[in-house]
C-alpha cells in the first residue's frame, strides 16, 4: 500500500513537473470541449472541432517544431462533466488549451480550473459577461460574442436605425433579465424609451398573450430577451400574429444562424439581431466557409468561426513566442493583433475580451434569398469599440 502510494505520488509529481516545461511533451494539445449531443451541438459541436482542425492544418499540423493535436469531448451541458473533463485533460492528458465550451455554467467552471492550473482557455461558445468581468482570468480569452454585445449592441444599432421605443418579452430568470437590463441601459443612455416589458417562464410554449401585449404597446421594437427554444417559439408565434408586417420590428437578443436555419425564412423574416460573424461577408469569409462546409456539411456559426480564429491566434502566439509556456503565450496573444477572416484588426483587452466588429443583421424574406444559408442582410457593421463593454467597467480585477 505504502509503496503504491509513493509510486502514485511520484507519478503525479512527475507529470505535473513535465507539464510546466518548455513545449510540454513536445506536442501542442488543444481540447475542444463542448456540447456534441444536446441543444448546442449544432451551433458548436463537431463543427467547432472541425474549425480547430482547420486552424491547425493552416500551420501544417506543426507549430514551432511541435505537432498539433486536437482532442474533443462532449460536456453534455453539465458543468460537472465539463469541470471533470477539463481537470482530467490538464492533470493527465497534457492538454495545453481548452477551446469553445458553450453553456455559461460549464464555461465558468472551466475558467476557474484553467485559472488555477495556468492553461489557456479560448471561449467561443459561452456568452456570460462574468467571464471577462468578476470571473476573468489572465489565461481566459473571450472570443466570438458575449451577452452584452448581443443586447447593448442590438439596442444601440437599432437606435441608430431610428427605432427608439422598446418593449421586452423576457425569460424570467437571471439570463433573460440581464439581457433586458443591458439593452435598457443602452437604450436609455441614448435617449430611447422602454415602453414596457413582460416576463415569461423559462420553457414557455405559448407566447400569444405576451405577444398581444407587446403588439398593443405600439413600441418600435419588440425585443426577445430569451434564447434557444424560447426565442424560436416566440419568433414563430410573432410571425403568426403578423407583427413585422404591421410595422413593428422584432429584435432577438441572442440568436444564432442555426436558429434561423431551424425557423426557416418565412417565420424569421424581418427579425433583427447582432451576429459576430456571417459566412457571406466578403471573399475571405466565403472562402473559408466553403472549405468548412465541405467538411461539416453546413455553413459555420459565429461560435465555430470563433473557435477557428481563436485557435489560429493561439498557434500564431506560440509560433512567435517559441514556447507553450502559458504566461508567455498569453502575453504574446495580447500583443499580436488578431487578423484573419473572422476578425479584422481584432485586439485583446486586459480582461481577456477580444474586440472585433459585430454586425447588425436582418433576416431576408424568402423571395430575396438566393440559396441555402443565404439568410442575412447586414444592416450595419458595429465597430469593435462600441460593440463590447468597456473593460474599465467590466469589474475584472486584471484591468488597472
Amino acid at each position, binding site marked *: *500500500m*505504502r509503496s*503504491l*502510494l509513493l*509510486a*502514485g*505520488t511520484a507519478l503525479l509529481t512527475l507529470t505535473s513537473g513535465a507539464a510546466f516545461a518548455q513545449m510540454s511533451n513536445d506536442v501542442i494539445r488543444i481540447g475542444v470541449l463542448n456540447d*456534441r*449531443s*444536446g441543444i448546442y451541438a449544432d451551433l458548436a459541436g*463537431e463543427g467547432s472541432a472541425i474549425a480547430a482542425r482547420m486552424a491547425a492544418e493552416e500551420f501544417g499540423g506543426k507549430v514551432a517544431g511541435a505537432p498539433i493535436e486536437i*482532442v*474533443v*469531448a*462532449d*460536456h*453534455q*451541458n*453539465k*458543468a*460537472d*462533466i465539463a*469541470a*471533470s*473533463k477539463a*481537470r*482530467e485533460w490538464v*492533470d*493527465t492528458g497534457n492538454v495545453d488549451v481548452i477551446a469553445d465550451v458553450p453553456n*455559461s*455554467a460549464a464555461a*465558468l*467552471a472551466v*475558467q*476557474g480550473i484553467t485559472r488555477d492550473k495556468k492553461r489557456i482557455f479560448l471561449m467561443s461558445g459561452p456568452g*456570460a459577461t*462574468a467571464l471577462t468581468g468578476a*470571473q476573468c482570468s489572465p489565461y481566459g480569452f473571450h472570443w466570438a460574442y458575449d451577452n452584452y454585445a448581443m443586447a447593448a449592441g442590438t439596442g444601440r444599432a437599432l437606435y441608430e436605425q431610428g427605432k427608439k421605443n422598446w418593449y421586452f418579452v423576457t425569460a*424570467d*430568470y*437571471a*439570463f433573460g433579465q440581464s439581457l433586458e437590463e443591458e439593452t435598457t441601459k443602452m437604450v436609455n443612455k441614448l435617449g430611447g424609451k422602454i415602453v414596457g416589458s413582460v416576463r415569461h*417562464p*423559462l420553457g414557455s410554449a405559448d407566447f400569444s398573450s405576451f405577444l398581444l401585449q407587446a403588439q398593443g404597446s405600439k413600441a418600435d421594437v419588440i425585443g426577445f430577451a430569451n434564447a434557444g427554444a424560447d426565442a424560436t417559439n416566440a419568433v414563430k408565434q410573432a410571425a403568426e400574429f403578423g407583427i413585422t408586417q404591421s410595422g413593428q420590428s422584432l429584435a432577438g437578443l441572442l440568436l444564432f444562424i442555426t436558429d434561423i436555419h431551424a425557423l426557416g425564412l418565412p417565420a424569421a423574416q424581418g427579425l433583427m439581431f447582432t451576429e459576430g460573424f456571417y459566412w457571406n461577408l466578403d471573399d475571405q469569409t466565403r472562402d473559408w466557409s466553403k472549405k468548412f462546409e465541405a467538411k461539416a456539411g453546413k455553413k459555420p456559426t459565429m461560435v465555430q468561426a470563433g473557435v477557428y480564429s481563436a485557435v489560429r491566434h493561439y498557434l500564431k502566439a506560440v509560433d512567435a513566442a517559441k514556447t507553450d509556456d502559458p504566461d508567455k503565450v498569453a502575453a504574446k496573444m495580447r500583443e499580436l493583433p488578431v487578423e484573419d477572416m473572422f476578425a479584422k484588426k481584432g485586439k485583446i483587452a486586459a480582461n481577456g475580451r477580444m474586440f472585433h466588429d459585430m454586425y447588425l443583421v436582418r433576416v431576408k424574406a424568402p423571395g430575396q434569398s438566393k440559396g441555402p444559408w443565404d439568410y442575412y442582410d447586414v444592416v450595419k457593421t458595429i465597430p469593435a469599440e462600441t460593440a463590447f463593454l468597456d473593460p474599465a467597467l467590466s469589474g475584472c480585477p486584471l484591468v488597472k
Partner: protein
Amino acid sequence: MTAASQATAATATATATATLRGPDAGTARTALLFVVGLTIAALAPFALYPVFVMKVLCFALFACAFNLLIGFAGLLSFGHAAFFGGAAYVTAHAVKVWGLPPELGLLLGTAAAALLGVLFGAIAIRRQGIYFAMITLALSQMVFFMALQLKFTGGEDGIQGVPRGVLFGVFDLTQPLTMYYAVLAVFVFGFALIWRAVHSPFGQVLKAIRENEPRAISLGYRTERYKLLAFVLSASLAGLAGGTKALVFQLASLTDVQWQMSGEVVLMTLLGGMGTLVGPVVGAGLVVTLESYLAATSLPVPVVIGAIFVVCVLLFRRGIVGEILARLPGRKA
C-alpha cells in the same frame, strides 16, 4: 494491496463462501461485497483519475439513498434532484459566501435536504403510486424554479469556485487524495447507515409496507410515520451526496436540481438493481463511466445510455446486480 488487506479479503471470502448456502447467505454476500468494494475503492485513485472516482462515489451515494426509498419502502420519488441539488447549493453557498469549514457546509446542506424532505414527505406520502411520483416531481420543479430565480444561486451560471477548505481544521481538501478519502468516508458512512436501516426492525417494517400496506396497518404499524422517516432519511442522504459533489467539483449548478437528474437516479438504480444494496452503486458507476468515457467519442451519450436502459428493461429486469444475485446458487430464482 498490502498483506493485511489481502488477508482480510481472503478471510471474508472464506467466511462468505462457507455461509453462502446458509440462512445468512444474503448478509454474508453483502459483507463480502462490502469488503471487496472497500478495497477496490481505497485503491481506485491510483489506477483511475481521482475526480472521476469521486464523482462515481457521490452518485453512488445518491442512488443508494434513492434506492432506500424505492427498493425498500416501495415509494417512487421523482423529485430527488431537489434534495441533491438543493443541498449542493446550500453547501456551496455556506462554504463560499459564509466562509464556513467544509464539514459545517456539508452539515447545513444535509440539514437543508432533510428539511425539504420533511416538507415533501409530509405532503407526498398521503398518496401512492403515480400520484406520489407526480407530487414529488411538482415539488422538485418548484425547487428548480427557485434555484433558477433566487439571487444566491447565480441562475444559470450556478455557484462557481467553491473553495474546498480544510476538513475539521486538519485535512486539506485541496489535495486530491485527501479529498478522495474524505469523499470515500462520506460514502461509507452513508452506505453503512442505509445498510443498518435496511437490516433493522425499521427496515423490516418498511419492507412490510412495500409488500402490503393495509396488512402492516392492521398489524398496528403507523405506516405513514415509517414512510415519512424513510423519506427524510433518503432525502438527507441524497443531500449529503449533493453537498459532497459541490465540494468535489467546487460548483453547484442547475444540472443538479433539474428533473433530468431525478430521472438519472431512477436510471442508475434500475440499471444496477432496485432493492439490492450494491445495485445502485454499480448502476451509478456504469452511468457515470459512460457519461465521461463516451464524452470523448463521437457516440451521442444520451442515446447510448437510453439504449442500454431499454436492453436492461427487456432482458434483465432485476438490474445487473439483481440478476446476478438471483442466479447465484442457494437462492430460488
